[in-house]
C-alpha cells in the first residue's frame, strides 16, 4: 500500500518544499557554516580578513577554567531543571487525569506558562524572587540574607532552575496528560479491582506505561536546558553572581556579543552543539533500550 502522497510533477514538488528548504538553509545551515568558519579562524586585532588558525580557538577554551565552570554549571542546571520540570509535570498530569472536579480548567491553565517567552518568565521570577521587594522578601524579614540570589550562587541557581522548570513543566504536562489518557481506562480499573490504590496504580501501572513519553521528554528537556535557557539567565541573574549561573549558552552570548570575540563564541557554539548531539545519541542508544513500548 502506498502510504505517502506521490507527486508526478517534479516542479510542483520542488515549489512546495522550496520555502521550507529555504528556511532551513538560511536559519540553520548557513549560520552553522558561518560558525564553523569563525571557530577555526580569528580576526586580526587591527582589522583585516579572518585568518585560519585551525584548532587554536578550541585549545584555548578547553584550557580556560572559566569555560569548565560554565560546563559544570550547565550540567547541574540541566539535571536539576529536567528533574524538577518532569516531576512536577508528571504529578500535575496524574492529578488532572483522575478527572477530579475542575480538571478541564486545570488542563487549560497548566499549559499557559509554555506560551510565555523565556525573558518574560525571567522577568516575572526576578520580581517574585527579588530579595528585598519580591514575594520571597518575607523570608528575609525573619532571617536576613537567607535568600539572596544576587549574592549567593546557589540561590541564583535555584532561581533559574525554578523559572525554567515552571516553563518546561507546562510543555511536559501536555505530553504526560496525552500519554496518560491513551492508557486504556480498563487497565486502571483492573488495578483498582486488584486492590491497588491511587498512588500504587500510578507507580505500578501508569508510570511504567509512560516510559516512551518519559524518555522523549528527557531528551527534549535536557536539550532545552542546554540551548534554550539563555533568556531566563539574561533577565534574572546575568550569569552571576561570580559566574554561578554562567551557563554555556549564556557564556557564548556574553563572549560573542559583549566581548565581541566571535571566534571564541563560535568555537563554544560548536562544542555545545556536539555536546547536545552526543547526549541525544547516548540517550537513544542506552536509555531507549530499556524503555518498554507497550
Amino acid at each position, binding site marked *: 500500500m502506498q502510504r505517502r502522497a506521490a507527486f508526478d510533477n517534479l516542479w510542483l514538488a520542488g515549489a512546495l518544499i522550496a520555502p521550507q528548504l529555504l528556511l532551513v538553509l538560511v536559519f540553520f545551515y548557513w549560520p552553522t557554516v558561518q560558525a564553523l568558519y569563525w571557530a577555526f579562524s580569528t580576526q586580526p586585532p587591527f582589522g583585516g580578513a579572518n585568518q585560519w588558525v585551525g584548532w587554536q580557538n578550541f585549545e584555548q577554551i578547553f584550557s580556560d577554567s572559566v569555560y569548565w565552570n560554565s560546563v559544570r554549571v550547565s550540567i547541574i542546571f540541566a539535571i536539576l531543571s529536567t528533574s524538577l520540570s518532569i516531576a512536577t509535570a508528571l504529578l500535575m498530569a496524574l492529578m488532572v487525569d483522575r478527572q477530579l472536579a475542575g480538571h478541564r480548567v486545570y488542563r487549560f491553565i497548566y499549559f499557559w506558562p509554555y506560551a510565555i517567552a523565556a525573558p518574560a518568565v525571567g522577568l516575572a521570577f526576578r520580581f517574585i524572587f527579588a530579595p528585598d521587594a519580591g514575594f520571597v522578601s518575607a523570608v528575609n524579614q525573619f532571617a536576613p540574607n537567607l535568600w539572596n540570589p544576587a549574592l549567593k550562587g546557589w540561590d541564583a541557581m535555584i532561581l533559574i532552575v525554578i523559572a525554567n522548570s515552571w516553563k518546561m513543566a507546562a510543555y511536559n504536562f501536555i505530553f504526560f496528560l496525552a500519554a496518560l489518557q491513551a492508557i486504556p481506562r480498563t487497565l486502571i480499573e*483492573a*488495578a483498582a*479491582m*486488584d*486492590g*491497588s*490504590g491511587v498512588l500504587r496504580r500510578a507507580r505500578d501501572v501508569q508510570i511504567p506505561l509512560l516510559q516512551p513519553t518519559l524518555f522523549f521528554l528527557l531528551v527534549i528537556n535536557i536539550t532545552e536546558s542546554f540551548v534554550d535557557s539563555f533568556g531566563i539567565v539574561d533577565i534574572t541573574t546575568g550569569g552571576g553572581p561570580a559566574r554561578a549561573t554562567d551557563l554555556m549558552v549564556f557564556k557564548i552570548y556574553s563572549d560573542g556579543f559583549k566581548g565581541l570575540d566571535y571566534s571564541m563564541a563560535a568555537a563554544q557554539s560548536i562544542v555545545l552543539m556536539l555536546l547536545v548531539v552526543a547526549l541525544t545519541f547516548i540517550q537513544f542508544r542506552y536509555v531507549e533500550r530499556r524503555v*518498554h513500548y507497550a
Partner: protein
Amino acid sequence: MADIEIRGITKTYGPTRVLHGVDLSIANGEFLVILGPSGCGKSTLLRMIAGLETIDGGEIAIGGTIVNRLEPRERGCAMVFQNYALYPHMTVAENIGYALKVAGRPKAERLARIGEIAKIVGLEDYLDRKPSQLSGGQRQRVAMGRAMIREPKVFLFDEPLSNLDAKLRVQMRLEIRRLHQRLGATSIFVTHDQIEAMTLADRIVVMHGGRVEQVGAPRTLYATPATRFVASFLGSPAMNLMPAEILRPGLARIAGGVDIAFDPALFAAVPGQQVELGIRPEDVELVRPGTEGAHALAVQFVEEMGASRLVHGRLGEAEFAVVQPNGRGTEGGETLAIALPPSAIHLFDIGNGRRLGLEPQRLDAVRAA
C-alpha cells in the same frame, strides 16, 4: 461467598438516564447472566456492583453489607474485562500475582499461588511471557487467573468471550462453567449473546433500555417470555412475531386472513383486541398437505444450518420462518403445509409488549398441573 441485593439502582449520565431502577437478588453461589442488546446498561450495572461507577440512586449490598460507599478493593469482587485489561508491561506471572503483591503477601506464598492458579487455567508454560506474546484464548485465561487468585466472594464478567473466535468461545464457556462448579463463588456474567446466556446461567436477567424485562431460569424465559422483547431476543432462530386480532377466545386472525388457534386457558384475551402473536420456528410442525387445520406457507428461500434448515416464507401476509429437520429438501416457490400447535402460541399486548393474561409464574403452575 456472598449473596447480592440490588435495590432500585439508577444511573444517569448527563441528561440521559441509563438505568431506571433495577432490582435484583442474587443468591450465594449462583451463576447469574445479565443479557441484553448493546447499550442497554449491562456493563454500567456490573461496574456499579464492582465499585467502578458511582451509584446515583438505590442500594447494593454484598453479603449483607451495603457497599455504596466502599472502594472496589473493599467489596471483595474480582472482574474479568471484555478486552482482558492485562498489564502489558508485566509477565503472565506478574499479571496473575499482582493482587497478592498489592496485598503485601510474601514472595514465596505468591509464587506458590501463582503456580497453582497457572495450573488451573493451563498457563504453566507461559508464566514468563508478556501478554502481547499470547493468543486471545491465553490472554483470556490470564484474565481469569488474575481474577481467581484473590479467592473473591464475587466474580464479575463483562462480555469476557466476545473477542474470541466461535470455537474458542464454546470451549471457554465450558471452562467458565467448570470453574464455577469448582469454586462455587457467586458469579455475574454480562453478555449480549443469548446462546452464551442460555448455556451458562442458573438464572438470566434480560435487560432492555435500562430496565429489567424478566428474570428467570433459561428454560422459563424460553418457554414463557414475559414480554415481546424477551421473546424476540431469546432463542435462535428468532421467534416469529406478527400483529393479530382476537376473534374469540382461542382464535386470532393475522394479516392476510389466516386464523390461528391458541390455548384460551393461557391467555386472557378479549375479542377485538389487537395483539402480537408469536410462535417459535422450531415449534411449528410440518404436516401432510390437506391435514385438518393446516396452513399454507409460501416458501421464499431456505437457510441451510447443517443439522436442520430454516425455511423462510409467508404465512398470509406475514414473514414466517420454520425449522425443517433434515430429510426432505424444500426450495423457494414451493408451498409447505404447516400446523401451529395452540399450546406453542404466545400472545403479547400490542401496546406495552407484555405477555397477555397470566403471570409467567402462574403460567408455570398451569403448565405443571
